[in-house]
């Protein structure tokens, strides 16, 4: 009888150990699925799902489960979404969020959940990783300043703009974008006499339109989604004819796919971006094709959001594979693998992290052009490889210039 009991318990033990060797890895994805950013946020989710689809939904026999949560672009909504994913769904890692200030909030939150790994989505505020970084927060992508590298230089030297007015939304991401643009533009000798910071979600820009100084050569517009559409429309209706320089999300494919007569203004506009829908690189074509195949109802090409969520989720899949799915010991091995990871990105560069766990990335200077069917696309003017967060400057000088804000940098 005792033997039987023993045999039964051995059997039970071995039965229990089977699922233990093939654990389920849960990934929480946070993106904005409501309000003005809903279409963009949806594309972010597609990117993360694509990375999981590519490995067939499992890594080394560990099934990967994706759980999505929506935030609404506000920091506290991102924190709530992350708490729900961690405490109720028990996720092992989080991919997200989408928007700048949300990223800062999750960076802070990550310090209270040392057992969970945070992989940034597309949020691109500078200080998410530069100052006060967190050991378990990784960004496999650039910040808003890295995304503008090449543009200030191009605007001053190639387009010949000496003086540029800035219109941008009033929060961390556009501050960072303006920094990226002005760092190059000002050191080349350009002037930025005025900056207009408008509330996010502003509808009526007409008074800003009339406040733009008449003697500037161009306008740098760092507005996203409906805000960009509204500004550009009202600017063109008021007879505005200054050339436009675009921020990274001002001329994203989702904006170019929007409906309305405002789009004529954008043809020929240069911009800085890490993601070009029409890029003809080999890796990008393959990425774009698999995106279109997996999501026939998606955009005509992956947006900046799909691209960045994809890179973060892909990094997680690669690191998981490197450690054979071992997430024990507070994911120490997994994080070491993430830190040392290098892989080829969809834009053909080599993704790797700096010491603050921020990506060293490729960046593009692009130009909007009209395709043969009348729709708009971006084409590449130049590619800048290996852009780091310090924009090529030495660390002490860069940090000494202080955190970005409405008034920093300045070159009136």
């Amino acid at each position, binding site marked *: 009888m005792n033997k039987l009991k023993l045999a039964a318990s051995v059997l039970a033990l071995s039965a229990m150990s089977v699922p233990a060797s093939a654990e389920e890895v849960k990934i929480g994805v946070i993106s904005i699925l409501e309000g*003005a950013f809903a279409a963009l946020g949806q594309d972010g989710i597609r990117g993360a799902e694509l990375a999981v689809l590519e490995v067939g939904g499992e890594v080394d026999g560990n099934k990967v489960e994706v759980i999505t949560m929506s935030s609404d672009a506000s920091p506290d909504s991102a924190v709530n979404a992350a708490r729900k994913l961690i405490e109720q769904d028990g996720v092992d890692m989080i991919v997200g969020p989408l928007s700048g200030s949300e990223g800062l909030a999750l960076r802070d939150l990550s310090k209270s959940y040392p057992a969970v790994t945070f992989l940034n989505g597309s949020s691109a505020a500078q200080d998410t990783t530069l100052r006060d970084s967190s050991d378990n927060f990784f960004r496999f992508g650039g910040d808003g300043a890295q995304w503008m590298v090449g543009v200030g230089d191009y605007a001053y030297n190639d387009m010949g703009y000496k003086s540029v007015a800035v219109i941008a939304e009033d929060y961390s991401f556009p501050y960072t974008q303006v920094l990226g643009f002005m760092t190059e533009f000002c050191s080349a000798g350009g002037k930025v006499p005025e900056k*207009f910071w408008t509330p996010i979600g502003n509808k*009526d820009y007409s008074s800003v339109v009339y*406040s733009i100084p008449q003697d500037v050569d161009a306008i740098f517009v760092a507005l996203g989604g*409906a805000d960009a*559409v509204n500004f550009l*429309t*009202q600017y063109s209706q008021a007879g505005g004819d200054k050339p436009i320089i675009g921020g990274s999300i001002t001329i994203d494919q989702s904006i170019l796919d929007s409906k*309305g*007569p405002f789009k004529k203004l954008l043809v020929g506009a240069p911009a800085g971006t890490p993601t070009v829908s029409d890029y003809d690189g080999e890796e990008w074509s393959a990425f774009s094709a698999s995106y279109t195949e997996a999501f026939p109802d998606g955009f005509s090409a992956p947006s900046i959001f799909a691209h960045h969520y994809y890179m973060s989720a892909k990094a997680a899949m690669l690191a998981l594979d490197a450690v054979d799915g071992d997430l024990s010991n507070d994911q120490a091995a997994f994080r070491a693998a993430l830190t040392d990871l290098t892989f080829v990105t969809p834009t053909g560069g080599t993704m790797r992290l700096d010491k603050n766990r921020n990506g060293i990335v490729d960046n593009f200077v692009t130009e909007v052009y009209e395709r043969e069917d009348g729709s708009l696309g971006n084409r590449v003017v130049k590619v800048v490889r290996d852009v780091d967060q310090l924009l090529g400057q030495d660390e002490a000088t860069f940090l000494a210039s202080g955190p970005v804000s409405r008034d920093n940098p300045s070159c009136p």
Partner: protein
Amino acid sequence: MTLFLIVTLNGLTLAALYFLAASGFSLIFGLMRTVNMAHGALLLLGGYVGYSIVDVTGSWGLGVLGGGLAAALAGALVQAGVLGWMQGDELRQTLASIAISIIMADLMLWYWGGLTYQVALPEALAGGQRLPILGVGYANIRLALMAFALATGLALWFLIQRTRFGAVIRAGVDDQDMLRALGYPIGRIFVLVFALGGMLAGMAGVVAASALSIAPGTDLQFLLSSLVVVIVGGMGSIGGAALGALLVGLAEQYGLAYAPTYGVVFTFAIMVLVLAVRPQGLLGKAEQ
């Protein structure tokens, strides 16, 4: 000086849009004491339907009319199908209308997606006008917007002050029970007023989609501005809605031009001031 005048003009045109959006909201509240939180959703629905109609037919006028009618129908359905069942229970109505607005917003997101839409303007409205004296370009659509709001305001005034239907509405505002006792089918009148309010919202939606743009979230923006406008102007008064819209529109534009970062504060400062000094609104009647 030029900037000041231009900004004032911008304030007036924005006020025109806010008036169009808020008048229906105020009308419904005046008669039924219903705070219709689905008003923004009706506006957005009108805007989307208007866009689709203009896209197919190419006629802007038809788009405005169609958007208005679609929102009128939706408004009538909301009153006849849901809010009518809880007449007199204002809190429940308010909560139910919030639920309706969320459901409508999600359905619209599902059907039209999250893209930003702009209604294509007819030739006459598309360009800009060189303003005399000021010597700067100004968008035709914004000038037309003021004319449109003025015409709508006058038509509304005529309807309410000079027609039999208007007399019934006014009687209903003053004494609903008496109106019912006199044998007027108050339920049907409520549905009609809701349709009228929806119509105004829907047309405002198409106009907003032409002058500015619409996207998910526009519903809440206009609901909020309508709320502020009627709180400042006085619930249930068309003149109050006009005055409130003027104040809010001007405050917003001056704020945007002279203190862009804190522009939003001006609007709410006005609201706080009005609530502190004259809680029934500038032209509102005090509750007995």
